[in-house]
């Protein structure tokens, strides 16, 4: 017996089905990548499962926790709430794209040096949110930093070292 979903699964993999999948071009960490995705897949799923970039985390998949934050066309977004097809032609920066050839971004350096990382699960999301903030506002006040990361949940650190690291990276 076949279900609606199982039928769809067969269809996606058929010759005809491959024409139903949407072709998207994503510019991930400066690299242009052509993919074929089912319309319902989120950007988060594509980043993690299709591209193997597991640095971006799935904490809730409903936009509550911020652990899936990536920078899309210069703005921080919850990638769990962005459809992959919506991101057609967009420039996406993930945590993996932040350090080039082993050279860390100042934010990463400060997080490490200040011991702002406990379990580290929120860290990629925090750093991407912070980068987006600093790209728009190069000298934020402490309050502005706190507001910016208010959508990034952290259970371990109580936030204060995270805030200190972001302020220290302001240069």
């Amino acid at each position, binding site marked *: 017996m076949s279900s609606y979903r199982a039928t769809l*699964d067969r269809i996606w993999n058929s010759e005809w089905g491959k024409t139903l999948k949407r072709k998207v071009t994503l510019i991930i960490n400066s690299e242009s990548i052509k993919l074929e995705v089912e319309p319902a897949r989120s950007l988060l799923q594509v980043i993690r499962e299709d591209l193997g970039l597991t640095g971006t*985390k799935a904490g809730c998949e409903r936009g509550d*926790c911020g652990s899936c934050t990536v920078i899309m066309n210069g703005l921080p977004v919850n990638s769990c709430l962005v459809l992959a097809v919506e991101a057609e032609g967009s420039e996406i920066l993930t945590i993996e794209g932040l350090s080039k050839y082993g050279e860390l971004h100042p934010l990463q350096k400060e997080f490490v040096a200040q011991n702002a990382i406990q379990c580290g699960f929120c860290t990629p999301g925090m750093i991407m949110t912070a980068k987006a903030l600093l790209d728009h506002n190069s000298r934020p006040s402490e309050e502005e*930093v706190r507001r910016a990361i208010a959508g990034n949940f952290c259970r371990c*650190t*109580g936030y204060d070292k995270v805030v200190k690291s972001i302020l220290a990276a302001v240069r």
Partner: protein
Amino acid sequence: MGREEFRVIGKKFSKVEALEKATGYLKYSGDFYFPNTLHAKILRSPYAHARIRNIDTRKAEKLQGVKAVISYKDIPKINAMHLFLILPSVQYFDSFLLAEKARHVGDRIAAVAATRPEIAEEALSLVQVDYEELPAVFDPIEAMKSSAPVIHDFAKRGEKKIEIRDNVVASLEIEVGDVEKGFRESELVVENEFRTSRPNNAPLERMVITCCPAPGGRLEVYAPAQSIHGLRMNIAYSLGLPPHKINVHRIYLGGAFGGHIHTGFIELICAFLALKIGQPVRAEKTREEMFLAYGRHPFVMKLRSGVKRDGTLMAQYVEMLDETGAYAFSGQSKLTLGAGFFMSMYRCPNMKCVGKTVYTNTPPLTAMRGAGNPQVHFAVESQMDIVAEKLGMDPIALRYKNHLREGDTFYGQGPDIVCKVATCGTEELLKRGAERIGWENRGKLRAGKPWLKRGFGMARGFHTSGAGSPEPSKFMMDYSGAIVKMNEDGTATLLTACVDVGGGNLSAHVAIVAETLGLTIEDVIISQGDTDSTLYDACTHASRSTYAGGLAVKAAAEKVKGVLLHWASNLLEAPPDILEIKDGRVYALENPSASIDIKDLVQTAQYRNWGTAVGEVSLRPTACPPHFTVCFAEVEVDTETGIVRVVRIISGADPGTAINMDNVKGQLVGGFHMGMGYALLEDTLIDRLSGRILNPNFSDYKTFTAVDMPVLDMVVVETFELTGPFGAKGVGEGATNPVAPAIANAIYNAIGVRFKELPITPEKVLKALKENQSSVRKF
């Protein structure tokens, strides 16, 4: 060796895995992907209490993409083992992999493994279950009445069947001295009832378990667990397999806070499916399912305290009701711990604790940071505040008079675990906390507007560093194994089963090895290991891993040091007892120029076929020295909205030697954040009609964000705990214990309303202000 002489301990260093975490490189449980993996989903009961009259999985099985559908008919008739650490002969058993009777909304009824998660979910909807709905009970006091529905007819303790009456899983009664006499001799007796809430551990990492079977029945397991040996034991027992068939890989966790010191059902179901099908199976919890598991046991505590006019505590008596949910995942541990913690709060010649652990038709609860101690602290430290006021005494002075100090008997992790306090920084912490907050201004605080009221409150407390005791425990496997070996380039590799859930214990262990062997932090490498390669480790819990885990690591490193000195003595032609290691060299004490680089030493040993230097140790700690903490809070209550804003906090701890001060302070802030949530905001809300959790997501389960945090000042008083590695104790749970009562006491100081129930929400504040009552709940 004095602290000033340390080369690594106490110096600023980054955690060893920080770089991997900052670059997104480090893999958590959900980041392991294997080819050919199936996805498992669990069918969950919509009813809080229902018998399964019939279950038909045939339609689900026929769905294309489905590889297996299982119900209680298909699973081994072996009780599921949930606890870590506890000897199987005394563990509580009250469940199987899948239920014949649903006991809470969300209880596991059936499971599916399919090629895609969406197909698995669709298959769940095709499983036909005929439920016979039963009356359910959601309140522990109601659950004990003779008219209450019976949740479990019986359970087992080890092999022994125990009858469950009135839904009571376990009872406890313990007395020291004679409380009746103590109350008679008291000049003031105060009695109050306190109720705590049901916060969720809410680690940010969503649990994923992946089980990969190999031909011949071996299973590789990747899952978040605070003990890989504990998880292996539980899976093996529950599936009727010998432990060596299961290999659990050690990974870093994205937070746990006690949530992963038990095995739930999903790990067992996933393992069973993988072995049955012969393909890797991945079971991923949604955030809703993360809220269905874990949580701090709600306690109802009737506390009676008797004191003399001068504040001397004469007697304390507590009746403790511990709610455990639908299954005894914790056994009676929270009750036993609660009793031990209660008896260790203060010097008191007469103490009695009577308690019960009760089932309700709510999701099973586990340990959460403090495991019985936050509840006890809330009751005892609120009561001390009440007593101080009635005596006309300063609350801090009352603590000075009665606090547990050097030489006092300490009951630690349960009344059977008895030792003596050796180091105590409480007085210094109280002094500095009072100074920093400006305690003399208490009662004279001004806020900006007339409807804003400010107040100061304080609380003191502690938590253990592990669960060690002079005599080996009869019910717990409490030892840590460690292996240290030298590499031919003069670096060391550390191999333990100790899990780092974020606190930085592995980095502390690296520092301990480095300090012992005269190496730098960068020169000590951690090998991740698995249950095949590592020695048993008790579990990362009870704030034990720096202290107890560290002792094992230090001992293993000392053995390596012995080998190195022995080799060096051959090369330097000097007896080993006049040799020392420092700064990467072995040198003779009387003649420092006679020395050899560690790198040259080990390389020579290898070239000459002397061997590889290695040290291995299994160590059981014989004490669980308390780390003491304090919390001073300034709050501002908005009497128009009921919102309590925490303005300023002084958080203090005596962690013995702070191996890494940043990490100690990180625990203080993190522990405070959880404590503030416990005091003011966090609670799992359960619908009283259906038993459904109403807020199983981060929108509705409120937690404090970066904008809500107060100004934080931290005080660390380093004592030197001789029984600890380089003088260190724990700190993780003590950091959270005194926070909720400090905030509750500050609220009382601000608006004159005493809240004896958590969380202290704006609604409760407004209601109380309106009614101008001195307590919110009356029984």
